[in-house]
């Protein structure tokens, strides 16, 4: 009867749409005209620092808060005012919120009990759900007898056993150690794909967001700043905040000197000029103030590779160096006083620099991204 592998989008998972949701708590604006849409079966991550409003957004979607303005729709049905109990949305809380006085099995059975399902059916479904998260043998244990990772999986089982249209996860991996977290990331994604569940995932960990998502929505101070697939968010951040929040970046302030369409020359504050790739969606007029973002890993050590056609070159002195295993990180200061963060691959075929040494590095114009200054 219930084959989890058969996906029928209209039956199972819903299309989520948030229209211009706004919410204030007293003087604090938690959400400011937030709009978002998630396609059926899609995994979207809401990424942002604490206080960005992402948890509030989640609560508004789940129904634990009501937006002051705006709407929430699932499959085009307006659920904005609907009681959380009737929204058919599965949610995994940050602290799992497992009922401490109930066994694992009763916890997972809870939503089915509330829906008045016959006992025999409940038992079957619960077993299925527990098997899917590989906890079948722990059904009679109490939550406090389980490890963090196991509690997590119970929370997942409980949130999905009643075949919700939408799954919400509120920073679920915060309490887990790194290895376990990476494991859970894979497991959750696998489960989600198998069930074809539309999923909204909240986190402040940008690496997690990049790894897990179909699309990422970056939030700050109650606004959605950018939505897009991970590589777009990473390579083409729309504004300084996004650029800075995702990964590390160098942000150089300067003024447009000349715009040749494909190449734009920017004169940095500190003096030197660099060539930056032009953007079709950004009209860089001479005299306009801009920011140029260059990711540290885009630099090339010119001592190792002097012939590479790099348009831009920096010569400076290493002030700090760090060995991170995968790469070497350097803080370089140029004679003009520009502070640059560089990452060079480490290994036998690459040179390692120590503090005080001179270094010459270059980067393509294509690796430099123009960001408008509002």
């Amino acid at each position, binding site marked *: 009867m219930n084959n989890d592998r058969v996906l029928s989008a209209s039956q199972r998972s819903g299309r989520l749409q948030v229209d211009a949701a706004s919410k204030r708590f007293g003087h604090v604006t938690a959400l400011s005209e937030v709009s978002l849409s998630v396609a059926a079966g899609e995994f979207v991550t809401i990424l942002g620092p604490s206080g960005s409003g992402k948890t509030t957004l989640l609560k508004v979607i*789940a*129904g*634990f808060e009501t937006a002051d303005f705006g709407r929430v729709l699932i499959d085009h049905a307006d659920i904005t005012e609907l*009681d*959380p*109990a*009737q*929204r*058919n*949305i*599965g*949610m995994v*809380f*940050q*602290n799992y*919120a497992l*009922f*401490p*006085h109930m066994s694992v099995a009763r916890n997972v059975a*809870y*939503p089915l009990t*509330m*829906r008045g399902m016959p006992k025999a059916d409940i038992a079957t479904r619960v077993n299925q759900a527990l098997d899917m998260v590989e906890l079948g043998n722990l059904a009679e244990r109490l939550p406090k007898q389980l490890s963090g990772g196991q509690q997590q999986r119970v929370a997942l089982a*409980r*949130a999905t056993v*009643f075949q919700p249209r939408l799954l919400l996860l509120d920073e679920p991996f915060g309490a887990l150690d790194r290895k376990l977290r990476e494991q859970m990331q894979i497991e959750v994604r696998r489960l989600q794909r198998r069930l074809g569940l539309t999923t909204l995932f909240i986190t402040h960990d940008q690496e997690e967001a990049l790894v897990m998502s179909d699309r990422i929505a970056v939030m700050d101070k109650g606004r959605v700043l950018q939505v897009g697939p991970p590589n777009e968010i990473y390579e083409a951040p729309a504004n300084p905040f996004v650029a800075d929040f995702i990964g590390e970046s160098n942000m150089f302030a300067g003024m447009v000197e000349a715009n040749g369409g494909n190449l734009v020359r920017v004169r940095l504050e500190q003096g030197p000029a660099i060539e930056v790739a032009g953007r079709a969606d950004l009209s860089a007029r001479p005299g306009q103030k801009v920011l140029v973002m260059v990711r540290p890993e885009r630099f090339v050590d010119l001592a190792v590779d002097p012939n590479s056609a790099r348009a831009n070159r920096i010569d400076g002195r290493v002030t700090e160096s760090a060995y991170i295993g995968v790469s070497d990180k350097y803080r370089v200061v140029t004679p003009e006083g520009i502070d640059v963060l560089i990452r060079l691959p480490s290994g036998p075929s690459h040179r390692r620099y120590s503090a005080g040494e001179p270094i010459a590095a270059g980067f393509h114009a294509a690796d430099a991204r123009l960001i408008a200054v509002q």
Partner: protein
Amino acid sequence: MKWQGRQRGAGTGRILLRVACGLIFAFLMLPLLVLFPISFSSGSYLRFPPPGFSLKWYERYFNDSTWIDATYQSLQVGAATTVLALLIGIPLAFGLVRGRFRGRALIENGISAPIIVPHIVLSIAIYGLFSRLGLIGEWYGIAVAHTVLALPFVVIVLLSGLRDFDTSLELAARGLGAGPIDAARTVTLPILAPSVYSAAFLAFITSFDELVVAMFISGANMTLPKKMFDSIMSEIEPTVAAVSAMQIVLISALLLLGTWLRRPITAPLLR
């Protein structure tokens, strides 16, 4: 560094502490233990050591209708106080913890007022009011007065229990499809039960043991403490010792029951 010395110093300090506390515990328990041999004494005076073994003081208690009536009165009043204190206290605690309204902090601080006001002052104040209203001697009057005294304790215990309560559990229950009543029934109340039991226990004890208010307003229908007080003042025979001994046994049994059932009656107090 005199590590050796410090280690040993810490050791003797610890031993001294233990000895001192042992003495203090003896100080705490000794008076209570003393009552038992007296209650079994065959002599009429508070003599130690008792001249012989006898159960007559216990017999005296069970055969005397005034003692039994007083006991019944105390039980009745105690039960009523407990129910009333919980009925009033539980909503109050929820309102204080979950609500956000002006004056909330004021009410929360003000709830302790009956504890701070000197017991005797409140007692005669209520006595004055009750005698005007003709409520002297009515068991429900005593119960209501006791509720005022018990309420702060009930609220303190419930507040700490509620504040420890993880509200995300309720949210989870609602999100999983439980209506507000179902969520309260299946999640909130079972988890809050220990606090409610503690609060109930406290309310009952407060009423059952209460003397000063009862002294004034229980009139002819004495409560047990009032009867005991009269007995102490008027006679030297140790029937009171028997009653006291029984009370101690009862309390010990309740405490043991509490720990055995793993309902830490005292834990919610320690905040």
